[in-house]
């Protein structure tokens, strides 16, 4: 593995909270310059992974290297080069926006003050406002601005658009995308807003029940998968050369996600390249028989929570 090409490398990374696992045996490499989506149900370990990358959570086992250094043992090497946005987007609520920018300037050697001001001006966030008086969306924008003004090589964003309305969500994603494409910044971004991610991301990591289900380049993953939509099929009738990832069958219709290298055919059904959302949902629907049944309920709930996540079909068991 080449350190200059790999921005985050984990191997066997695990975090245990008492008797439950926050993250279990997580191994993946994130190449430089990618915008990676980190998806999974609540409690699947996304925040745990991001916090370990930012050096504020101590792994129970395994290793994580960020930009070639250990965030735990060489925090100086890592923290100067990353922008970390915590899930709770903590800011000093009594500070004015301008004061919050000054905080960023005082706490960082590398700081692009002009850029920070430019972003906030474009977004119409007044510098004289108190942070606590801003809307949730504006607070998220200020938090993201603080990350971007560090001019980081790697952005770790933990649900940056959670609780934002669709407009604020798209605005924030625009700011993010505008900034990182110019500079070739690597991004690892966790979110439940799967539709937004499809536009932005070119790398996908799916976590479920504290394990990595799937990780890889989004284009390759899409090329390797096919969404079969057609009249109801028997589950034994999987097209030759393909592997069934998961199936959603109603009385009349079957929607299957298939994994296959090369072309496959299924007469009578449509075969299309799946979207990120369809891949993610299909993998999360996979029921690893028995082993993680405790979390299975919460997994569906968390996704169904969010009306914008998907047009989730009614599933017949």
């Amino acid at each position, binding site marked *: 593995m080449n350190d200059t090409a790999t921005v985050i490398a984990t191997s066997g990374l695990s975090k245990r909270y008492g008797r439950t696992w926050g993250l279990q045996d997580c191994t993946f490499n994130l190449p430089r310059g990618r915008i990676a989506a980190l998806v999974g149900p609540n409690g699947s370990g996304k925040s745990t992974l991001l916090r370990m990358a930012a*050096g*504020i959570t101590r792994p129970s086992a395994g290793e994580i290297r960020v930009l070639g250094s250990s965030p735990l043992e060489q925090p100086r090497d890592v923290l100067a080069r990353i922008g970390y946005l915590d899930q*709770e987007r*903590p800011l000093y609520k009594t500070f004015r926006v301008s004061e919050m920018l000054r*905080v*960023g300037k*005082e706490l960082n*050697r*590398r700081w692009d003050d002009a850029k920070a001001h430019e972003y906030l001006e474009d977004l119409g966030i007044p510098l004289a406002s108190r942070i606590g008086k801003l809307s949730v969306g504006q607070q998220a924008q200020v938090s993201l601005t*603080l990350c971007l003004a560090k001019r980081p090589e790697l952005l770790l964003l933990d649900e940056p658009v959670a609780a934002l309305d669709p407009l604020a969500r798209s605005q924030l994603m625009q700011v993010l995308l505008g900034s990182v494409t110019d500079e070739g910044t690597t991004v690892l971004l966790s979110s439940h807003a799967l539709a937004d991610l499809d536009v932005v991301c070119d790398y996908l990591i799916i976590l479920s029940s504290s394990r990595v289900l799937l990780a890889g380049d989004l284009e390759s993953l899409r090329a390797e998968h096919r969404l079969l939509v057609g009249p109801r099929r028997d589950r034994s009738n999987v097209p030759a050369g393909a592997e069934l990832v998961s199936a959603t069958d109603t009385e009349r219709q079957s929607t299957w996600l298939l994994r296959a290298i090369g072309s496959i055919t299924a007469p009578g059904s449509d075969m299309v390249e799946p979207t990120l959302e369809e891949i993610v949902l299909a993998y999360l629907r996979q029921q690893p028989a028995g082993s993680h049944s405790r979390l299975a309920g919460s997994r569906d709930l968390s996704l169904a929570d969010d009306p914008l996540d998907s047009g989730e079909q009614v599933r017949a068991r």
Partner: protein
Amino acid sequence: MTWLAWRGQRAQLVAIVAAVAVFAGWLALSGTADQSAWLAVSHCGQHCSPLALNRLSSADYWTSPNRLVLTFLPGVIGLVLGAPIVAREIEAGTNRFAWTQTIGRTHWLVTKLLVAGIVAAGAVGALDPLLAWWTGAVRNGPRILPMVFSVTGFVDVGYALFAFMLGALLGSVIRRTGWAIVAGVPLFVAARAWVQFSLRAHLAPVATFAGGLPAGSMIVTPSSVSIAYAPEPSALMNDWQLNQGYVPVGLHGPAAGQTWSTGWNALNRCTGPFPNGNLQVLEQYQRRTQHCIASLKLHYVQQYQPPSHYWRIQTAETALFVGAALVLLGLTVFVVRRWRT
């Protein structure tokens, strides 16, 4: 970073300084009034009105409620300013912002501690010149006495710094500002009490007075008769008296393995119980006492700290608390550096 440390605690720091300023104003006003009450009495002498004498009871150091406030003020200021340094950041989650920036945690922490610590020590220390005047105005008596010593000089700055770092450490361990203060109060009081009642007397060499007027001198007043076992020369009235009693001749304290009560017990066994009776009986008892002291080869010894040791003990006790504060600082840095979720 200095700006952030100031800005982050600005409201609290300003409030503390304002509260201390108001209290200082109150001390100046009430102290001036109390001082004139004492002056009035010194002028009227034998012919003072009951009203003027009555006024003294509230103008006296030992009955003044201000004394209680002053005893606890350094601890309260220290704990209130120290506890939130780390705990409030953790409560608000802002530590996850601050500790993922380029600046190191140690740099961040030490700057915050320095800014708030200087305000805490400064607010308490600024009162010291006023207290030197105020304690005199309310007739505090010898300042070497424990209850006066602790609110004069500069030792209160040491108390404030110790309480401040105690609050900061507890805050970083407990991670709740309120609980850190609650836990800090008994610990601070215990540390102060232990130093004041056990350690302070030994922070400078103990002075000894031995011998003097014949022991067992009788003091007869119209209302009572009491035996003074030993003289109390007027010079000793200004000292902080530590121990007194009868010890073997040649020693300035109890012999090894013995205590001060050993001498008293031996003497009481020899003389028998204190008699109830007329003057004649008492005179007999007095003679018996002198005889016992001689035959037991004892002499009267008094241990004390003289006023001349005041600054020496102030310096030593301040150094002790500042040293303890530095140890707590080291522990706080350790805890914060280790913090991970």
